[in-house]
C-alpha cells in the first residue's frame, strides 16, 4: 500500500466501507456514530415517500418528520436495493466484471479505482495509463453532471431544458460508445490496460450546447428562486461537489496520488445551497472539457488480459463525479481475499439529510435530493 496505512485518523474523512472508516491517508476501524435523529414531538408525523414512487430512479424510502410542510428530519432506508456480490475468491480480472457493474453510470470511476488498487497491491507500473484514465473519468463526469442538472430541471418542471439535457447526455454517451465500444465503459478498463480509441472524443459541440442551456437556466428567475437558499449544507465532513459548493477545497484530484492530474483549477462556491451545487456541477463540466482537451490524447489503446498471480494489499482513491471513491483490495496469489469500497454516496446521503433538515419544506425535497447526485446502487452493495 503506497498511499494508505492502517492506523489513527489523519486528514479529512472520506467515508465508510463495510469494515473501515477511511481518511485521506489512513484506514481505521469503524468509529462510533453519533448521528442521532430528531425526536418526534406532538402533532408531528412521519410522511412516507418511496421506496417505489414516482420521481425516484432507484428504490429508497424516506420518512420525512414533519409538523406539516416543513421538514424537521428524515429517516432514510436505502436497504431495499441491497445487493450482496459474491466476489472474494474471484481472480482479479473476473472481479473487474462485477466491480464495473456496481454503478453502471459511474462504471469508469469504479473500474479505474479498482484497477489502481490492484496495481498498487501488486506493484504494477501504470504511469503510462494515467492520462488516459483521467480522460475517461472526466468524460464520465461530464455525463454525470449533465444528468444531475437534468434532475434539477425535472424537479422544477422545466421540461424543455430537461429534454435538451437528456439529449446532451445521450450525445456524450454516444461519444463514449464510439470511443470505447460501450456507453457505460463495460469491459474497457483492465489491470494496467484500457481498450479505446481516444481520437474519437470531440467535445466542442457538447460544450457549445451545454453553455447555451446553462446560460438559459441562469437567466430564469423562477429556476434560481427554487435553488437558492435551499438545502444549505456547510458541513466540513463532506465530499465532492457538495463540499466544494460549501467552500471546502476537497478534491481527490488534489490530495490523492492514485491519479496525477496536471494543470487543473478547482471550481468552488461559498453558499453551500442547491444553487451552489448546481453551479459547481455546471462549471466542472467546462473544467472537465478543458482537462480532456489539455491532454489531447489521439491514440488508440488495445486491451490485453493480464493474469497476475501476486500477493499484496492495495488502495486507490479517485475523484468520481460525486466525490471521493475509495477501493481497498487484499490479493493472495491473484485472487481477492478482501475488497472494501467506499463510495461518495455514503457521505452525500448523510449530508443530503443535513441539507434537507436545514429549514426546508416539502417542495424543496427533490431539488435537494437531485443536487447531491446520490446513487443507491453504489451505496447498498456488499462484498462476499
Amino acid at each position: 500500500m503506497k498511499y494508505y496505512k492502517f492506523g489513527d485518523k489523519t486528514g479529512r474523512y472520506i467515508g465508510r466501507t463495510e469494515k473501515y472508516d477511511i481518511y485521506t491517508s489512513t484506514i481505521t476501524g469503524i468509529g462510533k456514530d453519533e448521528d442521532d435523529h430528531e425526536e418526534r414531538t406532538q402533532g408531528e408525523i412521519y410522511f412516507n415517500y418511496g421506496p417505489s414512487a414516482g420521481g425516484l430512479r432507484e428504490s429508497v424510502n424516506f420518512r420525512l418528520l414533519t409538523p406539516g410542510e416543513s421538514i424537521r428530519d428524515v429517516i432514510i432506508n436505502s436497504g431495499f436495493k441491497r445487493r450482496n456480490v459474491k466476489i472474494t475468491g474471484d481472480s482479479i480480472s473476473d472481479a473487474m466484471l462485477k466491480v464495473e457493474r456496481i454503478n453502471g453510470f459511474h462504471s469508469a470511476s469504479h473500474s479505474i479505482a479498482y484497477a489502481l488498487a490492484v496495481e498498487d497491491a501488486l506493484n504494477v507500473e501504470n504511469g503510462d495509463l494515467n492520462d488516459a484514465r483521467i480522460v475517461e473519468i472526466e468524460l464520465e463526469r461530464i455525463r454525470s453532471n449533465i444528468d444531475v442538472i437534468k434532475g434539477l430541471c425535472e424537479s422544477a418542471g422545466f421540461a424543455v431544458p430537461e429534454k435538451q439535457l437528456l439529449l446532451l447526455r445521450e450525445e456524450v454517451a454516444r461519444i463514449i460508445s464510439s470511443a470505447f465500444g460501450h456507453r457505460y465503459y463495460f469491459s474497457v478498463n483492465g489491470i494496467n490496460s484500457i481498450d479505446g480509441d481516444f481520437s474519437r472524443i470531440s467535445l466542442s459541440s457538447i460544450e457549445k450546447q451545454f453553455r447555451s442551456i446553462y446560460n438559459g437556466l441562469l437567466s430564469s428567475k423562477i429556476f434560481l428562486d427554487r435553488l437558492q437558499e435551499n438545502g444549505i449544507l456547510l458541513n466540513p465532513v463532506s465530499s465532492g461537489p457538495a463540499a466544494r459548493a460549501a467552500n471546502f477545497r476537497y478534491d481527490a484530484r488534489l490530495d490523492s496520488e492514485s491519479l496525477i492530474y496536471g494543470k487543473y483549477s478547482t471550481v468552488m462556491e461559498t453558499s453551500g445551497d442547491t444553487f451552489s451545487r448546481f453551479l459547481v456541477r455546471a462549471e466542472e463540466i467546462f473544467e472537465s472539457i478543458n482537462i480532456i482537451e489539455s491532454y489531447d490524447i489521439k491514440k488508440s489503446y488495445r486491451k490485453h488480459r493480464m493474469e497476475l498471480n501476486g500477493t499484496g494489499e492495495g488502495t486507490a482513491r479517485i475523484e468520481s463525479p460525486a466525490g471521493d471513491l475509495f477501493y481497498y483490495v487484499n490479493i493472495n496469489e491473484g485472487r481477492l481475499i478482501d475488497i472494501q469500497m467506499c463510495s461518495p454516496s455514503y457521505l452525500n446521503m448523510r449530508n443530503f439529510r443535513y441539507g434537507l433538515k436545514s429549514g426546508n419544506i416539502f417542495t424543496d425535497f427533490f431539488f435537494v435530493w437531485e443536487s447531491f447526485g446520490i446513487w443507491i446502487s453504489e451505496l447498498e452493495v456488499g462484498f462476499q
Partner: protein
Amino acid sequence: MISYYIPLMAIFLAVLISIKYRTAGYIITAIASVLFFLFTFRIFDYITYFYLIAAIVWIITSVFSISYSKKYGRWLAPLFILTIAGMMTILYANNFLVFITGWEIMSIPAYLTVAINKKNDMEAYIFMLFSEISTVLIITAAVLSYYYTGTFNFTGLSNDMVLLIFAIGAMSKMGLTPFMISEWLPIAHGSAPANSSAIFSATMTLMGVYGILKIALLSPVSIDIGILFIIIGVISVLFGALYAYISENMKSLGGFSTIENNGVLMAALGLFVAVNDSVLKEFILISIAIFAMAHSIAKTGLFISIGHTGVEYFSAVNGGKDTVNQVGKFFAMSSLSGLFPSLGGLGTWMVLESFFMGAYLYGPLGIASIIAGSLIAMGEGFATAAMLKIFYFTDSHRKSRGKNLENYTILGTGITLVFLFAVSFLIVGKNYISGIPSVLVFNGFMIESRLGVSDFGLITPLYIVILLTVFTVIIFLVFGRPKTRIANRWNGGVEHGEYYNSSTYSNNIRLILKRVLRTKSTDENRVETVDIFWLIMINIAKAYRNFAKFTAYKIMNSSISAYIAYMIAAFILIIIIVSLV
C-alpha cells in the same frame, strides 16, 4: 301579563332546584326555554329573532347537559342555569337597569364556572376583568343616556356617544379585536365544560350583539362610528378565522371561531349604523339576525361535538366515527363555513350581499363596504378550513359502536340548521320575498337582496334543499347503494402507518404567516397560538409598570424638593389647560 314572565320565573326556579336535582334543573330549563321560544311568535319584529336564537341554543344545551354534566361536580348545573337566567333577563329588559342586572347575573356565574374548573387562577381573573370592564362601560353608557334623555328606559337618542361607549363595552365581552383574549382564554384554558363553553360562545356573546343592535336602533345614523365598527369587525374576522385554523386546542378553535363570527356581526352592525337607506338598512338587520341565529345554533353544535370527544386537544382524540354524529357535525360545520344548504350559508350570503350593495353608497362608506365584503369573504375561506379541521379530526379512523344521546343532540343541531335554511323565506321580511313563476320559482319562495326597487341578488333556499334531496333520491333509486370497493392505499410499497393530523393540516399557514401568527411550541411540545393583541396589551402593561417604577424611584422618592417641583409643574399645567378652555 304574569304569564309573560313565566319562563323567567321558571328559570330562576330551575337554578334552585338544580342545586339538589341536577337533571330536573336541566329539564325545567329546557321547558322554560321552550316557553320563551313560543313568545317569539307573539312579539314579532327582527329583534325577536334573538329570543328565537337564544331559546333554540338553551334547549339544545340543556338536553345535551343531562348526559354530559354527569362527570362534573354539583355546582355546574346551578351556575350554568343561572348564566342562562341572566341572559333571559337581558332579553326581557326594556331599560338599562334591568339590562345591567341581567348582564351581571350572566357574567358572575360564568367566571365562577371557569374558576371552579380552573387549571390556574389567571383565566378566571382575565375573564372577570374583561366582564367588569364591559359592565363599567355599559353603566357609563346608561348614565350618559340618562343625561341625554332623562330616563333609563330604552328611548330614542339624538347623540351617537351612548352607542359608541356601549359598543366598546359589549365588544370586550364579545372578544372582538383587540379584546380577543376575553373570549378564547377562558374557553380554551379555563377548562370550562363544553356545555358552558357553548353558551359562553353561542349566546353570551350574542347578548353583546343584541345590546349593540338595541342601542343602534335608538341612535342616529353615524358614518364614522359605522366605519369604526366595520374596521374592528373585519380585523376580528381575519384574525379570528386565522387563529381558529391554527388552533390545536379544540375549544380554543371554537372560541376563535366565535370571534370570527362576532366580527362579521360587528361589521354588519357598523354598516347598519352607517347606512341611511331604509330598504338596505332593513336587509342588513335581517342579515344580522339570520347570521346570529346560524352562528349560535351551529356554534352550539361545534362545542357539543368537541365536548363529545372528551378531550381538549386534537392530538388526544381517540373516539370512533359515528354516522349520526358525522351527519350532524357536517351540517353544523357547513353552517359555520358559510356554505349551503345551511342557515349559515344564507346568513353569510346576506351579509356579503349587504356589503357589496353598500358599494353603491359611494364615498368612504362605499369603499369601506366593498373592501370589508372582500375581506369577510376571505375570512370565511379560512373559517371553512378551520371547520374542516373540526369535522375531520374530532374522531379517529375507526367506527364507534352503540348509541349516544350526545350524538343525536349534534344531529339535531345540524338538522335544525338545514330546516331553518329551507324555511328561511318565512323568517325574512316580506319586502325581500318574491318569485319568478316563469321558471317555476313561485312567488313567496325566493329571497332577494335589494338596495332599492330592483333586486341585487337572488336565492331560493327551499328549492336548493328540495333539488339536492330529489337528485340524491333519484341517484339512489337509479344506481342503488353505492358499490364501494376498498383498496389499500399505495404507500410507496411499505405498510401504511401514519395519518395526516390536525397540526400538519394547518402548518402551512403557520409557516406562511409566522411573523403575524407567532406560533410557538409549549413545554409539552404542543403547538400554541399566540394572540398578538394580548401580547401587545401585556407589553403596554409592562411598559407602564416600568414607567411607574421609574416615577416612584426617581420622582416620587420622598424628596421634598422633587415634590415641590412636581406640584409647581402640575399647577402651571392646570393653569394653562384652564386658560385654554
